[in-house]
């Protein structure tokens, strides 16, 4: 099984590494193991950095594992092969009043990827991470062993594989408990706020009343305007509230080619952020959304990642514990604003305290900040190192699914369970991220 030598890219289009790709389409079949070298499961490649890449090794593409196995429309339990995408699950489940219990900002990820990165979403403050809603899965190891993993059975492998970045084995099938929803629409408010204090007040006030909460911050705000942004909060509407609403078909938008330079630069950023902040004149706007408009606005633009040009971009997501979260968030925003780098959408959210079963899971109680940086050379990497220092000092951590550059020490300090985790890593499995960050940590 030679496989093509290809240059599959992660979503950040950085780094670019040559590797072989082999396909797996039969969940009962053996792993397509190459004679030598390491392997890594690869789904839809939506991890931003190098955690879904295996430079010089082999990727096992799992999209062929795309069959549903069962769906109980009464209990909301759905079982499918791990290459099924979240978009496909929504298509099957939402018409019957079921939705994903947790979802990232794109639905174009596989079920296996969602588990391996223990993804989270705008309802983390209530429902925690994706892994909390996984009932069980089958883990196929390179020696051919198949482990049925759940909180009761092989619980140690269950914990290691949730957020385990695909290093503990290949997840072939999984069972997920979906969430009951009254309709395919959400209702809530968009609230303009002028400072971080307001943001934290709104977060505290909305945690109990709204299942989905997220904020956009103007990353160029300094002094007076530091920490200004829009606060979004929403709940799924009941069938009665949503009566008569129709989902609009969005136009098929796409970024067809990669522009020669990043379209996100100091000039466009300043104009966009000011316009975005001021687009809403009233302080509180009542809003309704379809599921796609609320959860997946960027999915409407195919290949949006191309706007950052041929050099690609770095996505940065960190979480800091509650103790100094306001001051640390301020310090991070100041550092970013001073640099003039950063992207259109800086996302800020307060996580809840539901603990994930995942050993290496990213979310923890505290505040998380996420944003994109077009790669402008050394300056970009140095800026992120300075942000790392602030995060680590505060006792926080960086999200591996979005990383392509953190130092091994940064990782080790953020993830104290790394030594326990190592025991469950499959001897044949590795990734560019694992070699760069975990092996030396």
């Amino acid at each position, binding site marked *: 099984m*030679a496989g093509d030598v290809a240059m599959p890219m992660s979503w950040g289009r950085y780094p670019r590494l040559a590797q072989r790709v082999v396909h797996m389409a039969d969940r009962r079949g053996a792993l397509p193991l190459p004679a030598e070298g390491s392997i890594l499961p690869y789904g839809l490649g939506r991890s931003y950095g190098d955690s879904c890449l295996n430079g010089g090794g082999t990727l096992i593409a799992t999209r*062929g594992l795309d069959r*549903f*196995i*069962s769906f109980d429309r009464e209990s909301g339990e*759905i079982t499918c092969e791990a290459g099924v995408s979240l978009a496909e699950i929504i298509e*099957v489940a939402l018409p019957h009043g079921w939705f994903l219990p947790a979802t990232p900002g794109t639905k174009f990820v596989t079920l296996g990827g969602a588990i391996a990165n223990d993804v989270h979403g705008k309802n983390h403050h209530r429902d925690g991470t994706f892994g909390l809603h996984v009932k069980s899965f089958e883990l196929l190891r390179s020696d051919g062993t198949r482990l049925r993993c759940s909180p009761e059975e092989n619980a140690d492998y269950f914990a290691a594989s949730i957020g385990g970045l695909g290093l503990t084995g290949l997840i072939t099938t999984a069972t997920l408990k979906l969430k009951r929803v009254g309709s395919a629409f959400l209702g809530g408010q968009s609230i303009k706020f002028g400072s971080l204090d307001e943001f934290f007040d709104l977060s505290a006030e909305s945690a109990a009343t709204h299942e989905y909460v997220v904020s956009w911050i103007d990353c160029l705000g300094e002094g007076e305007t530091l920490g200004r942004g829009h606060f979004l909060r929403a709940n799924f509407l009941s069938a009665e509230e949503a009566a008569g609403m129709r989902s609009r078909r969005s136009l098929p938008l796409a970024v067809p080619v990669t522009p020669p330079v990043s379209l996100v630069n100091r000039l466009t950023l300043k104009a966009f952020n000011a316009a975005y902040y001021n687009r809403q004149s009233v302080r509180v706007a009542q809003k309704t959304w379809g599921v796609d408009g609320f959860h997946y606005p960027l999915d409407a633009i195919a290949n949006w990642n191309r706007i950052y040009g041929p050099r690609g971009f770095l996505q940065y997501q960190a979480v800091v514990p509650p103790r100094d979260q306001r001051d640390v968030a301020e310090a991070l925003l100041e550092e970013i604003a001073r640099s003039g780098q950063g992207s259109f959408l800086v996302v800020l959210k307060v996580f809840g305290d539901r603990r994930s079963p995942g050993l290496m899971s990213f979310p923890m109680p505290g505040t998380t900040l996420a944003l994109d940086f077009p790669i402008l050379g050394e300056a970009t990497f140095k800026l992120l190192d300075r942000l790392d220092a602030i995060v680590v000092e505060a006792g926080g951590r960086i999200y591996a699914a979005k990383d392509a550059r953190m130092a091994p020490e940064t990782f080790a300090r953020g993830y104290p369970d790394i030594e326990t985790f190592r025991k469950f890593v499959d001897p044949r499995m590795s990734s560019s991220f694992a070699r760069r960050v975990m092996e030396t940590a």
Partner: protein
Amino acid sequence: MNRILIFGATSAIAQEVARNLAKEGASFFLVARSAVALGDISADLTVRGAASVMTRVADLAVLDTLADLCDEGRDALGGIDVAVIAHGILPDQKACENSVDATLGALRVNAMSPAALMTRLGEIIGHQGSGSLVVISSVAGDRGRPSNYVYGASKALLSVMGEGMALALGSKGVNVLVVKPGFVDTPMTAAFPKGPLWASAKSVGDGIVEAVRKGRRGVIYAPFWWRFIMLVIRFAPGFVVSKI
């Protein structure tokens, strides 16, 4: 369009056709060799919305059972709105060149078997007065090439037979649709390096369903632009064809 009979139901293109139709709540009668694979596909289609899925394990190379299989499918479904013939193998061209048995074996699965099914299904659907008969052929049937002329010859038979049936049975309400996919990324082509001309099985399957919905008959290429590529290739001289 809700009673669907598929021969070679485990083929990648057939699965995508079935998934698309399952969303609308169709009923299926699926025929294939592997009971395990049929079970998996049946479960998948059920979750995706199929009203019912019946499966039948059969070796489609056994020619004298095929007419009865068509009748069995029709009876189980209570009539046929869409029949899809999708089974086929990619024979080992080199082995065929030195073996009459290998060549005939390949032609039996890829040409004789579908021809038998087409004949009986044409009768059944003609008798009903409406319905579609979809035959998965290939662009490889448009010209003989040194690297795969046995496969190409089998597909040429399907294309010509389907084209003729479409003209003959159109007035009886039978929409015979010959689909000629170009390069499709499926398990059958897993060993080939992929380039920009390759399409996914899903896009080909969705294209077929769209054509059936529109009541198309005759020959279609999938994706459509293969029609222009093949137009050029059909007029190319032999020494050029021998290079591709």
